[in-house]
C-alpha cells in the first residue's frame, strides 16, 4: 500500500515535471471518433488522443464513464463538435474535471462548430420543436467540406498549444486535406446524376445533402429525438408512396423495427448507415466512414 502511494506520488511529480517541459505529447480528449481520427493524423506522435464516444452509439446519448473525467482532468486540449451534440455528457464531465486549461473560452477548449456554417438553426427556441438540435443541426461531420475547416481548426489549435511542432501539424493537416479533397471529387462522381431522394430516421443529413446533391424528403422521427406515433408513420408511408421515395436511411444505432415496416409498405430500399467513425465495422477512419455512407446512398451497381 505504502509503495503504491509512493509510486502514485512519484508519477504525479513526473507528470508535473513533464508538463513544465514541452517534450511531452499534447494530451487531447475528443468527443466523437471522427475528431480522434483527425487529431491523430494531424498530431502524429506529438499527441495522445482519447475519444469519449466509441462511435457505435447515438452521439446524443453517451454513457458517462469515470475515465472520461480523469482523462479530461489531465488534458491539454478538449475538442467537441458543439451545437449541443454532446449536451448529454460533455458539459457535466468538463465541470467535474476542474481542469482550468480546457474550460469553455480557454485555448484548451475547441468547439469545432464555430468555424462552420450551421444549417437548420431555429429562428426561435421552442422545446415543442424536439429536444436535441436547439442550436441548429450538429451532424456536420457528414460533410467532408465542413470537416476541412475542422482539420484547419485542430491544426491551428495544436500549433498554439505546442508551437515547437507547428510546422509538422500544418504539414499533416495539408496532407489530410488534400487526401480528403481527392475523395470528395470521387464521392461526388459516385452520387452524381442519381437524383437520390430519401427518408432518414433522424435529421442527420442536411450537410451531406447540400454537399452531394441528394435530397432528404422526410424523417421517421417527427421532430429530432422524438419517436413517431402510428398516425405519423401512416402519413409518412402515404407520402413516400405518392412521391415515389425509393430509399430509407436508418442511422446504424436505431432499431430497425419501424424502418423495416415502412420499407415493406413502400417497397423502398432500406440501408443502415454509420453517422460517425466506428459507427459500423467498415467505418474505421473518417474516409472509410464517408466511403461507407456514399456507397450506402449510391447502392450496389
Amino acid at each position: 500500500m505504502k509503495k503504491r502511494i509512493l509510486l502514485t506520488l512519484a508519477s504525479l511529480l513526473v507528470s508535473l515535471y513533464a508538463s513544465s517541459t514541452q517534450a511531452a505529447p499534447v494530451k487531447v480528449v475528443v468527443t466523437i471518433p471522427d475528431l480522434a481520427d483527425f487529431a491523430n493524423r494531424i498530431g502524429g506522435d506529438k499527441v495522445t488522443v482519447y475519444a469519449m464516444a466509441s462511435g457505435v452509439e447515438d452521439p446524443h446519448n453517451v454513457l458517462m464513464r469515470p475515465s472520461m473525467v480523469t482523462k479530461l482532468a489531465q488534458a491539454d486540449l478538449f475538442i467537441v463538435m458543439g451545437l449541443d451534440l454532446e449536451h448529454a455528457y460533455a458539459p457535466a464531465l468538463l465541470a467535474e474535471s476542474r481542469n482550468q486549461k480546457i474550460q469553455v473560452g480557454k485555448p484548451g477548449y475547441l468547439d469545432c462548430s464555430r468555424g462552420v456554417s450551421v444549417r437548420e438553426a431555429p429562428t426561435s427556441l421552442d422545446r415543442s420543436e424536439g429536444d436535441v438540435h436547439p442550436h441548429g443541426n450538429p451532424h456536420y461531420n457528414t460533410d467532408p467540406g465542413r470537416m476541412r475547416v475542422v482539420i484547419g481548426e485542430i491544426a491551428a489549435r495544436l500549433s498554439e498549444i505546442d508551437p515547437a511542432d507547428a510546422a509538422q501539424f500544418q504539414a499533416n493537416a495539408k496532407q489530410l486535406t488534400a487526401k480528403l479533397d481527392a475523395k470528395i471529387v470521387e464521392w461526388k462522381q459516385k452520387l452524381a446524376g442519381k437524383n437520390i431522394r430519401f427518408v432518414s430516421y433522424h435529421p442527420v443529413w442536411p450537410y451531406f445533402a447540400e454537399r452531394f446533391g441528394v435530397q432528404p424528403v422526410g424523417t421517421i422521427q417527427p421532430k429530432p429525438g422524438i419517436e413517431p406515433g402510428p398516425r405519423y408513420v401512416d402519413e409518412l408511408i402515404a407520402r413516400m408512396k405518392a412521391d415515389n421515395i425509393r430509399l430509407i436511411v436508418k442511422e446504424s444505432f436505431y432499431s430497425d423495427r419501424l424502418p423495416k415496416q415502412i420499407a415493406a409498405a413502400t417497397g423502398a430500399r432500406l440501408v443502415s448507415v454509420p453517422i460517425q467513425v466506428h459507427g459500423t465495422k467498415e467505418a474505421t477512419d473518417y474516409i472509410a466512414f464517408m466511403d461507407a455512407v456514399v456507397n450506402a446512398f449510391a447502392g450496389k451497381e
Partner: protein
Amino acid sequence: MEALTKTVGSLQQQLDSQKQLWDGFHAPATAALGGATEAPAEPNPNASAGSLDQIQRDVDELKSAQRQVKSGLFNPDISAAVDFITSYSRKANNVNFTLRDAEVMIQSNVDQYARAYIVFNAETELAPTEKLGIFDKTSLGVEEAAIQTTNLPWGLQLKAGQFFADFTRMDKIHSHDLPFVDRPRSLTEIIGGEDASRGFELNWLVPMDHYLRLTGGVVDNIGADLPITSTLFNPDGSVHSASAFNDGANRPFQSLMGYGRAATLFDLGSGKVLHLGADYAKGSQDTRRQIASADAKLEWQPDPAKYDLFETGGEVLWSKQSGQLADQTLWQSPSIESLFNQSTGNASAAGGYVYAQYRFGKLWQPGVRVDYTHSNAFQLLDSDNNGDADSLGRLTNNVWTYSSYLTLNLSEFNRLRLQLNYVNGSEDIVPGKGRNDIQAFFQWTVILGAHKHDFAP
C-alpha cells in the same frame, strides 16, 4: 420605414463589428492553413455559383458568430421544475393531490473565480396517509443558494452557503430528480429529508488515473435530527411525537457537524460502470449525532448502440443521536414533563434500500425497490392505565416498504411515473388502522428551460 432602415443599418454595424471580433478571435485558424474553407479544392466549372456559395457561407458565418456572442451574454441559466403527485392510501382511504415541488433555479458564473446558483421552491411533503389541505406541510423559500469556486488548483472545489451536502448517494438529489416517486423511507428517517445544510464544503478530485473524489464539510446540520420518540398516537388517532432533544441556546464551535464522503468509480468495461461511496458525519456538544453510510450503484449499457440501460444500487445507513431530553410542550402530564427535563437519552435508526431498473429503449423504465428502516426511540407509557402517559419506555419499529414503479420518459423534459408501495411495519402505519398499507402514486414532472445533466458520484 426610416426607423427600420436605421435599425437594419445599426444591426449591420453590429454584425460587422461582431465579425471583426470574430475574425480576430478566429485569425489563427484561418491564417494558419491559408484560409481553410468548406469548399474543397476541386475544379469548379461554375465560378459565379462558387461566389454565391461564398456569400451564403459568409452570411451563415455571421449568423453563427452572432449566435455564439449571444449565448455568451451575461444572462444566467434559468430552469424550472414542476413535480405534481397524486397519492392514494388504501388503509387511510385518502387521496392527495400534492404539488410536491415547484422550483426555479438560477445559475451562472460570477467571475473568473466562482459560480453561484439559487434554487427557490415551494415544496410539499408527500404524506399519502394524511388528509392534506392547501399549504399543509408546505415549505416555501430558498432551498439552496451557494457559491462555488471554479479556479482552485489541484482539483479542489470549495462551496459555501446553503446547499444539499455531498453526503450519501441519493439524499443529495432533488426529490423530482429521484428515480422513484418517493424518497426511500430509510433516507428520510435516518437523515431527516434531503441533505439540506448551511456551511462550507471542500471537495477534491484526486489527480490520478483512477477516479476518486473526496469531500469534507463543516455545516450546522445535515437534514434533521432523529425523532426522539417513535411516531405515537393519541387515543383519538392524532399524532403524538416530537423531536425532543435539548438544542441548547447557542451554537458553540464544537456543536457544528463535520462530514466526509469518499466516492470512487470503476470502469468495468463492456458498458459497465460501478460507483462506490462511503460517508461519515458527526456533530457533538448538546446532541451527539452520528451518521454513517455506504452505497453502491452499477450501471450497465448492454449494447452501446441501443438506449437500453440497466441500473441497480442501494445504500445502507446508520445513525445515532444522544443528548439531554427537553420538553417540547407536547407533554401534557407534569410527570412526563419532569421526566423529560431531567433525562438524557438516545435514539437510533438503521436501514437501507436496494433498487433495480431497466430502461427499454428511450421511453419505458420499470423498476423495483425494497426499503428497510429500523428505528429505536422512546415511547410514552401509561403504566396505571388511567389514559394519561406517565413514564417513558423504549420502542422499536421495523418498517419494510416494497415498491414497483414504471417511468415513461416522454422526452428529456417530460416524465410520467406510476408507483405502488406495500408498507409493512411492526407499529401502525395508518393510526389505528393497522400495520400495513398499500399506497399508489402517479407523478408528472416537467422541466423548463436549461437542463443540465449532472455527473453525480
